[in-house]
Structures are given as C-alpha cells and as structure tokens.
C-alpha cells in the first residue's frame, strides 16, 4: 500500500498521508433524495463516477475500483448505512485499498468515522480537487491561492475530537469545554496562517505591478479560452499560437494562465489566453481563490467557449461552464462577446457530424478539431469579425479645451489617428460598444462619420 516509491512525492495539500500511486477506491454516492447540486446539469451517475475516477487519476492515484453507491438516506455519522460500510470494508481489505475517494461533500465527522472503520484515508471531492490544484499550480501566486483555499477548507472542517479532549483533560475547565479550547487553538493557528498567506499574496501581486494606481492593460484585445476541463483549450491554444503548452488527457492539466501575443491574418494583434478548466461542483473555496487567475478572463474582450462536442455529457458541461461564468459576473459575456467552439469533431461519427455541423450553423457556433486543424480557419475568421464588431473605430472632433474627453479616449480606447486642426483635433479611435456609449453620453459628443476606411488605411 505504502510500498510505492516516495522519492518524488510532493507533499499534498493537507499533508496527511496520501501518496502517489496509492491504490484507490472511487465512490460516487447517488442520492435518492436531498439537495441536487446547481451544477449537476442532470448528469448520469455513471458519467459522474467516470469523472471522479479521472480526478483521482489526475493526482496519480491507482484507481483499483470505482462504483456508484445508492443512498436512500444519508447517515449523519457515516453517510452510508452500516451494511454498506461493512461490504466496502471487506472490499477495501481484500484489495488493499489505501485511499477512498468519495465524490460528494462529506462532513468531517463522516470522514473521520469512515477512516476509522476502513483504516484508509478518505477524501471528498473538494479535498481531491484541492490536491490536484495544489500539485499543478506553478506560479507563486497560483500556489498561494491554492494554499489559501486549502486553509479555509481545513478551517471549515475542524472537529472536536476525543484525542483533543484527552489532551486537554484536567485543564482549565472553567474556560469552557476543554475540547473547545483545543478547537480554538487549531482555529487560531489556521487563522494565523491565512493572514500570513494573504500578506504574501499581496506582496506577490505588488511585485507584479498589479497594484499600480491604474493597472496597465496590455494594449491589445484579449481573447480568452474557457471551458470544461479536458475540452481541448490548451490544444487549441497551441494550434492558434504555435506554442507548446502542456495539453494532456488529464483533468486540470492547465492551472496557471498562459498568454501569447498572436497576429491574426488581418494584421490585428491579440493576446490569446489559456486558462484553468471548469468542472461541475467546483469547490466554492476555489471559485473565490481562482478569480485572480481568471483575471484575463474577467478582462477579456472575447471569450472562446471550447467544448468537447464528442463528450456524452457535453450539454451538462456547457451548463456548468455558463453557471461558473455567471457566478464570476460574466453573464453578459455569454451573448455577443462569446464564440462557442465545438471541438473534437474528428471523434464524431460521420452521420452525427453532419447534424452537428448543421446545428452549429444555426446556433451559431463553429465546429473544429484542434487536433487536425479542421475548422480552425473559420474560427479565426469569426474571431476577426467579432473583434471588428466589438471594437469599431469611430472619429470624434474635440475642441482643444475638451482635454478630459481626449484623455478619456486615450485611456479607454486605441487611438488610431489624430489630426490637429485650428481649434480642434479629430481623433480616430477604436472603442468597445460599451465604451462608445459611455463616452458619448458622458461627454455629449457624437461620432463625426464612419471611420472604418481610415482605420483600414492606417492599421490594416
């Protein structure tokens, strides 16, 4: 069980005894009643189980068995009924299982009781995802974010335990329950680490220049790839940018955002940004922590929602991604500023493929294979068209005393040309539709004429 090579083991997030290559049992509890996750998207338990096994493999666990356990009524102490605990206990002993993954949220009490009954490590879905993120994060900021998420997860799972009571027995009883004071010590220790961690994060951000008075954006439109984990974002990123970031048949292969500047065939330069994948039931701790690594997404001019069209749960995954985007405040991006990319069409049977292409036309979406390159030229053409639409050039005539309006244009737009005349200047500027509206309302000016021609002449 623990006879696996330990030499290259990195410490896991909560550091309590799980090892790479450990023999693992993956359980997906299917509840007859009880709250349904908002993200579950009506998926089958089978596909949820398969995804959970994929998550376990993502931290190199050796998945020996995986099964769906039907639960009529979750037991507060052990989640499963005593019969289930026993039956699985026998399997665990026989198969020498060292880690049991439970694909649900379990309470600290349930976790502890099951660990005792089975003499294994038990980990729930959030714990597992935290482990993966902890291993994959590369930048110091990413690592600190994950640590912070892990700490708040741990803090929420502190339990009053008998060992604590024993340790404290004979203490200052009048200060409240002795177990409670141990709990409070644990809580304080974690809180101290959280404070330290937050301070370190601030430092990292400061050195990155994020806290400048007005943070400077790269002066190119940002196109961000988003989508469910394993949908093919990094593969597409590599194809479009000609680079070699890790793309692998592995859940959460990408954790740290990567950006590349690329020049589109029409001559425009953009920043393409590859991001961490989404997953159903993304732990809330991580949604918060990873907001920062999704910064490029938050500021993107255009989102490409990359979908694995060959996946049996493609629709559920789409719903999950859109729910996460909405929770990040990007609900409005779901319309005009998003392109839906149906990836992996090479894996779809010819007949189904025809139907998909038809559907894509109507939807509208673009069907591609990031592996073979099919459809990618069309995707690029759509990106170009969308960016032209989202940032139309317009010309404004501003008097020389309208310094504030001029300043605003330089700050928010891309000034393509400037013609100084007696008493006024004419500025040709590329602005997003929102900014165009804001600008015209705020300064009470209107564009003088369609500036497309000048823009083409100057920039094309």
């Amino acid at each position: 069980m623990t006879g696996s090579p330990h030499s290259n083991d990195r410490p896991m997030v909560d550091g309590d005894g799980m090892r790479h290559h450990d023999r693992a049992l993956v359980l997906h509890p299917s509840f007859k009643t009880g709250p349904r996750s908002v993200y579950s998207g009506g998926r089958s338990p089978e596909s949820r189980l398969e995804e959970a096994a994929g998550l376990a493999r993502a931290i190199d666990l050796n998945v020996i068995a995986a099964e769906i356990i039907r639960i009529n009524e979750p037991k507060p102490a052990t989640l499963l009924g005593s019969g289930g605990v026993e039956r699985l206990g026998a399997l665990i002993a026989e198969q020498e299982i060292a880690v049991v993954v439970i694909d649900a949220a379990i309470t600290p009490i349930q976790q502890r009781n099951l660990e005792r009954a089975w003499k294994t490590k038990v980990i729930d879905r959030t714990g597992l995802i935290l482990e993966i993120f902890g291993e994959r994060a590369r930048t110091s900021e990413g690592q600190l974010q994950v640590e912070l998420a892990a700490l708040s997860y741990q803090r929420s799972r502190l339990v009053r335990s008998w060992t604590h009571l024993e340790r404290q027995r004979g203490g200052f009883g009048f200060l409240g329950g002795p177990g409670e004071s141990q709990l409070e010590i644990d809580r304080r220790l974690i809180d101290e680490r959280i404070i330290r961690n937050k301070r370190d994060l601030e430092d990292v951000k400061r050195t990155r220049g994020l806290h400048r008075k007005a943070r400077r954006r790269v002066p190119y439109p940002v196109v961000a790839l988003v989508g469910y984990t394993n949908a093919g974002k990094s593969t597409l990123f590599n194809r479009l940018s000609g680079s070699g970031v890790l793309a692998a048949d592995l859940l959460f292969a990408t954790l740290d955002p990567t950006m590349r500047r690329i020049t589109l065939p029409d001559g425009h330069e953009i920043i393409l940004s590859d991001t961490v994948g989404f997953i159903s039931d993304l732990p809330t701790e991580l949604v918060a922590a990873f907001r920062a690594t999704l910064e490029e997404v938050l500021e993107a001019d255009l989102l490409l929602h990359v979908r694995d069209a060959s996946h049996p749960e493609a629709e559920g995954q789409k719903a999950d991604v859109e729910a996460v985007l909405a929770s990040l405040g990007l609900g409005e991006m779901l319309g005009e500023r998003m392109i839906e990319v149906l990836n992996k069409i090479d894996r779809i049977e010819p007949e189904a493929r025809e139907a998909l292409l038809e559907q894509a036309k109507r939807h509208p979406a673009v069907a591609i294979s990031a592996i073979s390159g099919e459809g990618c030229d069309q995707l690029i053409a759509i990106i170009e068209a969308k960016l032209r639409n989202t940032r139309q050039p317009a010309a404004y005539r501003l008097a020389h005393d309208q310094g504030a309006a001029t300043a605003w244009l330089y700050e928010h737009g891309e000034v393509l040309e400037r013609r100084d005349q007696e008493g006024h200047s004419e500025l040709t500027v590329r602005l997003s539709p929102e900014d165009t509206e804001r600008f015209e309302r705020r300064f009470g000016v209107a564009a003088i004429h369609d500036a497309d021609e000048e823009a083409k002449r100057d920039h094309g």
Partner: protein
Amino acid sequence: MAEVAVPTREEIVALLQAVLDGTTSRTAAAEWASEVQEEIEELDHDAVEPKMWHLLRLAASLDVKSGDAYLHDEATIRDWIEGRG
C-alpha cells in the same frame, strides 16, 4: 495646459535596451512607463503621438506574466526597438 515632460522615442528605446541588457528591471521600467502615462493623461494628451502612446503602453506592460515567463519575450522587445511594435 501645463507642461509635461513627454519622453522621446529615443528615451523609451534606451529604457527597453536597458531592460534587455539587464541594467533595469522589467518592473522598474513598467512602473516608470505607467507613471509617465498617468502624468500625460492628467496633463496634456496633445503632446503625444499615437504611435508613441502605443509604445508607452507596451512598456507599461513589460512585467505582465504568462505562467512562469513574461508575456513579452526579449525578441518582442527587440521588435519594439526596431519599430515593429
């Protein structure tokens, strides 16, 4: 309008060269470019040519990271120096 010391193209190129030579850090260069940008925004836009403005904005993003590396690699900075921003 008040006077603002707008950097010349030569000055920005010198700054970029200093980053390439390692005599100035990317962060210091980006901070400087941002500050100049802010000053210009407050005082007098008319003093800056759009192309220069673009170069200044690029310089202000010198320390933007992509994963472990910098978004703008050294070859890109050399492109800017040679006027291919």
